[in-house]
């Protein structure tokens, strides 16, 4: 182990890790390590505190290779899209079913169609050509492949994080258990609804909402999920550190942004800024739409008390560029989105887009 070129920041939690991952097929070099996520104290009895967090690290790469072909089907086709590879070395159902929930990430340099997009794996199959004896593995996907994906894309497979994986099956990573009204809440925004998970200490296990019995520890936390940790009840005076262990995300990342609110993670183990995030691309079909404070898509970052709202100003009195609402003409492009944090994109303009964020840092 040796120190790297990452420079500890003032007031920062220093995290350390190293390794080279091996996979079944292809060795990868994604570094692994751990990240400490501070969970804010509520400050006063009966008060609540919220922390916008992201896991910041990914599960290790289980497989990486180059596809021999893809099957991309028309919209509304009953046939799901799939990716195939020859001689993968995996076993049937290795990446689905009882083995857990896995996903494919397409790889590629910036500008490569679909690079950084992810797809849940529905099935993992193997077939042997009776003539050539060549074994072909096929991954059936839950989502349609991105448009214009190459015929033989590079890809990798990781297991999804679940609540139990990330925070401990027995809640041993630092969150407070209790009841729905006293435990720390992991809030996930999904389908227009705030889902609130907590660890029930009376009938031990992860629970959703006011349910006290149904085990939800296996709930997937998607790579783009921005997590909001709500500290409540008697846990008012402590700031907890939740330690997450995993692999550093490399390569560009692509997350879907849909109409309305999107709670998003900084997927990287390094800070980004509004300016470096590539959230604004000049094209509202690929990034946030510019406009006035009330007409542009908005980025909301929690400041510990309320939200700072940012937008890409198309002009007017604030001038053009990233601006903070009520921030005048000051350039807000350097506004940080720290590692291990999450934020909100409020898409108010028509259509959705894929936020393609470049790797942070640019190089390791």
């Amino acid at each position: 182990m040796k120190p790297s070129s990452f420079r500890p920041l003032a007031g920062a939690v220093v995290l350390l890790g190293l390794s080279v991952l091996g996979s079944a097929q292809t060795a990868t070099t994604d570094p692994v390590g751990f990240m400490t996520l501070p969970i804010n104290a509520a400050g006063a009895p009966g008060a609540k505190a919220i922390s916008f967090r992201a896991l910041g690290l990914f599960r290790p790469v289980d497989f990486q290779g180059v596809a021999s072909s893809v099957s991309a089907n028309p919209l509304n086709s009953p046939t799901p899209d799939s990716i195939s590879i020859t001689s993968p070395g995996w076993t049937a159902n290795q990446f689905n079913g009882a083995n857990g929930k896995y996903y494919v990430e397409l790889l590629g340099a910036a500008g490569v169609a679909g690079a950084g997009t992810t797809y849940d794996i529905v099935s993992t199959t193997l077939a042997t050509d009776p003539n050539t004896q060549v074994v072909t593995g096929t991954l059936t996907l839950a989502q349609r492949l991105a448009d214009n994906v190459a015929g033989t894309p590079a890809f990798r497979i990781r297991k999804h994080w679940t609540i139990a994986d990330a925070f401990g099956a027995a809640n041993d990573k630092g969150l407070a258990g209790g009841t729905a009204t006293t435990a720390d809440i992991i809030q996930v925004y999904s389908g227009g609804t705030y889902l609130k998970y907590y660890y029930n200490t009376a009938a031990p296990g992860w629970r959703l909402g006011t349910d006290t019995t149904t085990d939800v520890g296996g709930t997937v936390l998607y790579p783009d999920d921005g997590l909001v940790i709500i500290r409540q009840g008697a846990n008012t005076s402590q700031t907890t550190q939740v330690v997450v262990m995993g692999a550093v995300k490399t390569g560009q990342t692509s997350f879907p942004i849909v109409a309305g609110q999107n709670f998003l993670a900084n997927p990287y183990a390094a800070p980004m800024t509004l300016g470096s995030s590539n959230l604004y691309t000049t094209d509202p079909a690929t990034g946030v739409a510019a406009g006035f404070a009330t007409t542009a898509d908005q980025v909301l970052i929690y400041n510990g008390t309320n939200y700072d709202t940012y937008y890409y100003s198309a002009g007017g009195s604030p001038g053009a560029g990233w601006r903070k609402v009520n921030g005048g003409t000051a350039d807000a492009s350097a506004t940080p989105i720290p590692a291990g944090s999450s934020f909100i994109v409020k898409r108010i303009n028509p259509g959705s887009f894929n936020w393609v964020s470049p790797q942070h840092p640019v190089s390791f």
Partner: protein
Amino acid sequence: MRAFLIAALLLASGELLQASTVSVQADDSSGFSDAQGADLLSGSVLLGTFQLANGTAMSDSAVQAFAMDISGLLSHFTRFSTTEAHIQQGSSNPGELSVALNGTTATTPTLVGKQIYYLVVSGTDNSTVAASLATARQVGVYYLDKAFFTGTVRDGDWAFPDDNDFIPERTVDIADLTTNNLGVSLLSGGYSHVVIGTFGPDHSNAHPTAFNFELANIPEPSAGLMLTAGAGLLLRRRRRR
């Protein structure tokens, strides 16, 4: 093998407050002008809603009935936030402002879900909101009907949030009343309400293609009293006949 350090910023302690924030703006295009047709140099801007004591929303005509009576107008106005907001606060241009108002919508009657109104007041002393109200000479009342956004992702943008909402925040700009926020024409469909005052004819000096929202004169307190006294005398004379 290689080692590295990952740094993550410690985020500020985050206490969840039961309060709301509404950013009041007039800096897209349209701003405010005085009744004489000049960009407003000073004044105070209040956000709130006009409603009866039982929480029933008031019609535009009911609000207009108090156009000459600032105290009567205020008696039906439920103000959101005591944060001061003044013309040219957060903007260097006359007639404009950009200010975050912090407060609660748990008022009596409640503000939750109610229509957001701009109440713009200019007096002889605009050093504080209270001074503007006490010395008021001109007033304007404007709003964008919250129904304009019904069924869209901006649903509720011109309605006050609930303090308990996860994101109890709104941002409104007076130019929202105009097409594409350009300040050239009011929205079609009758959603833009100029209750007291006018839209134009004065243009913004900072954005010359945009019309400003002009305030209307209200009588000076002494003149108002004289008018009231005069009307009273007239009634007495008529009764004697």
